[in-house]
């Protein structure tokens, strides 16, 4: 058992950077604050790589299962002997993998942001928020118990709120940050209820106890029933609601596309934040989002819906997964896809940022023919598109294949959805690609120029990751029970999926490579579908209708009336009565000494008379 206490530094360094920049950043030169943020994250990343290397290779005897190690733990809040909340760091295959993913992506985002945010007055503020975000994510994945996870979960919510609302002088950004905050708040409520139910019934917050399938914790809740389902099922559903909200699953997805108000590099960081179960929600979300993504024109929105769709994919894989050995294929596939997706989606977002930086617009209609102006961005973006479309030998092919295989072994209907989504993904990604880099030769006010070196280098590094991440022996590293198993590419599944991807790309090429009338004709033929998808299936409107017309009118308005008239009325009434009584009696306090004395004597006389004659 090796010593991993130093992993504590991985989240603590960003925290320190956040405090430092937050308190003293305004006195620094922008470049200095950027360098501090970046180098802090760089140290974290190096530590994370060292941890991963030690955990998976040098500190690990070949052929044995990976164990989870509590590197550090303190009792943070000692309420009672049974109810104690710990803070600490747990090292297991997933957390080590996520450490690598998050520090890598975050480091790339930091480097990239030095270029992207150049000249922005809030430069240091952006970097301190980024550090806070990294800290929360790292704390989240290192959590030893479910309550610590909840704490960092909320911190992630706060820091995304801060980053989305970064341009706080823009009303739309403020509205979007509020929307993100409120929607995720509802989901977090579900998460909290789930945690409380689970820990109330098991008597522990600790992950190691909770996740042991043969341990007493699971057995004790399995029996207790509530409304026809076991308490365990209920609490897991609530926790899933929380996970769905944070990672923008249906029906909590509405905040994500609007959240595009924030500075672009943030999304590269926010993308790999999915954790929990339920295949159907995942499958539905993936196809739902993929259809919407085909019609959007704001490139960041396309990427946001694509993220939603890919997270749906991972959810689906988790949902169909069993536990242990070959049954855990879905679990492994989901994590594998999360890993590769983090790479290529970060690449896509950063590439989109570079494009926006050059064109000063988010709309695909304002772009076209950029391949000559932005050669590096063009190549890296193309790599990312090929990866997400699942074309071999890019990494997306491998992870997608594992997910498809997992779905194939459990549910043929979900498997079919996966194929459709794979085709749609290829289609909309290449629609985006051709729309930006090919298509019509738009006239620009000033010639777009390639992004500076600090922005293109992260793109190149991530492109490298996107190409080669697929060759990692994931099935030996991150599995549900820590034991590796043999996995091979099932060509019966892989070949059709590649073909579907290629078909999607070919259709997109025909429709969008050169400006043609086909897209408009298609939109005309399927006018209703197009309109529905373009308006995101009216989900925003449904939410607005529910909040404005139902919640506001039938709940908020009566409550407001009650508050204004009954609660405030009672208080105002008491205050008014006091004032009235005071005016009524204030004449008694005349300040005239002899008047007081007269009343005093008169009172005494009356009392004497009463006592003498009546008592």
């Amino acid at each position: 058992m090796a010593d991993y206490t130093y992993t504590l530094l991985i989240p603590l360094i960003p925290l320190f950077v956040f405090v430092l920049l937050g308190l003293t950043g305004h006195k620094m030169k922008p470049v200095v604050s950027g360098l501090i943020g970046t180098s802090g994250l760089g140290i974290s990343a190096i530590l994370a790589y060292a941890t991963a290397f030690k955990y998976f290779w040098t500190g690990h005897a070949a052929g044995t299962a990976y164990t989870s190690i509590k590197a550090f733990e303190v009792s943070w809040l000692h309420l009672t002997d049974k109810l104690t909340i710990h803070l600490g760091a747990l090292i297991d295959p997933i957390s080590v993998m996520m450490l690598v993913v998050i520090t890598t992506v975050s480091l790339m985002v930091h480097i990239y942001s030095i270029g992207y945010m150049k000249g922005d007055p809030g430069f240091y503020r952006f970097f301190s928020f980024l550090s806070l975000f990294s800290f929360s994510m790292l704390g989240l994945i290192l959590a030893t118990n479910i309550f610590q996870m909840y704490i960092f979960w909320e911190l992630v919510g706060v820091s995304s709120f801060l980053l989305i609302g970064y341009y706080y002088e823009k009303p739309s950004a403020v509205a979007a940050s509020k929307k993100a905050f409120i929607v995720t708040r509802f989901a977090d409520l579900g998460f909290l209820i789930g945690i409380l139910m689970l820990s109330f019934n098991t008597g522990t917050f600790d992950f190691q106890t909770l996740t042991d399938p043969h341990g007493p914790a699971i057995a004790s809740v399995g029996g207790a029933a509530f409304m026809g389902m076991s308490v365990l099922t209920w609490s897991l559903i609530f926790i899933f609601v929380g996970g769905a909200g944070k990672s923008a699953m249906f029906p909590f997805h509405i905040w994500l596309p609007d959240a595009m108000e924030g500075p672009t590099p943030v999304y590269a960081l926010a993308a790999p934040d999915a954790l929990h179960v339920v295949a159907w929600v995942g499958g539905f979300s993936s196809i739902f989002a993929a259809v919407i993504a085909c019609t959007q024109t704001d490139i960041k929105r396309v990427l946001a819906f694509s993220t939603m769709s890919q997270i749906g994919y991972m959810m689906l894989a988790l949902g169909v997964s069993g536990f242990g050995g070959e049954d855990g294929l879905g679990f492994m596939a989901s994590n594998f896809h999360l890993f590769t997706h983090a790479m290529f989606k970060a690449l896509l977002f950063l590439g989109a940022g570079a494009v926006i930086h050059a064109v000063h617009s988010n709309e695909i209609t304002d772009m076209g023919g950029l391949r000559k102006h932005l050669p590096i961005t063009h190549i890296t973006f193309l790599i990312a598109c090929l990866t997400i479309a699942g074309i071999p030998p890019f990494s997306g092919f491998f992870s997608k294949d594992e997910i498809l295989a997992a779905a194939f072994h459990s549910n043929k209907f979900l498997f079919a959805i996966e194929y459709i989504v794979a085709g749609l993904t290829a289609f909309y990604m290449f629609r985006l690609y051709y729309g930006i880099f090919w298509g019509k030769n738009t006239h620009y006010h000033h010639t777009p120029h390639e992004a500076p070196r600090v922005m293109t280098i992260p793109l190149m590094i991530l492109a490298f990751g996107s190409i080669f991440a697929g060759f990692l022996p994931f099935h030996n590293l991150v599995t549900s029970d820590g034991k590796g198993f043999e996995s091979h590419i099932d060509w019966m599944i892989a070949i059709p999926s590649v073909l579907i991807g290629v078909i999607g790309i070919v259709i997109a090429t025909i429709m969008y490579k050169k400006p043609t009338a086909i897209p408009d004709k298609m939109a005309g033929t399927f006018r209703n579908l197009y309109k529905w998808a373009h308006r995101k299936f009216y989900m925003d409107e449904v939410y607005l209708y529910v909040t404005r017309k139902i919640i506001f009118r039938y709940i908020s308005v009566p409550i407001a009336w009650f508050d204004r008239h009954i609660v405030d009325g009672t208080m105002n009434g008491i205050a008014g009565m006091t004032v009235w009584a005071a005016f009524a009696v204030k004449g008694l306090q005349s300040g005239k000494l002899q008047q007081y004395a007269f009343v005093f004597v008169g009172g005494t006389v009356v009392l004497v008379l009463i006592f003498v004659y009546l008592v």
Partner: protein
Amino acid sequence: MIQNIPLSYYLVISTLMFFIGIYGFLTRRNLITMLMSVELILNSVNINFVAFNRYLYPQQLQGHFFMLIVIAVAAAEAAVAIAIIINIYRNFKSIDVENVDEMKY
């Protein structure tokens, strides 16, 4: 000789003095006169103390001692009262109680 005067004589005198004092306190406007009225009230009480002591417990002296305490307290009170009156005079250029009614609502 003194034994022949009944207790009621003393009580009538002291009651008269008491109500004269009350009347003076309530009607006079001059603060000094009001202070004198208060002294009248106190002295009527003193007469009661001494008279009751003499007629009810001739062997004991508590009533006399209490009278002495009241006189001492009255002296102290008179000193404080006069000090207050002097300050009022300095502030209001008058010792008319009608003018001193600032302490109101």
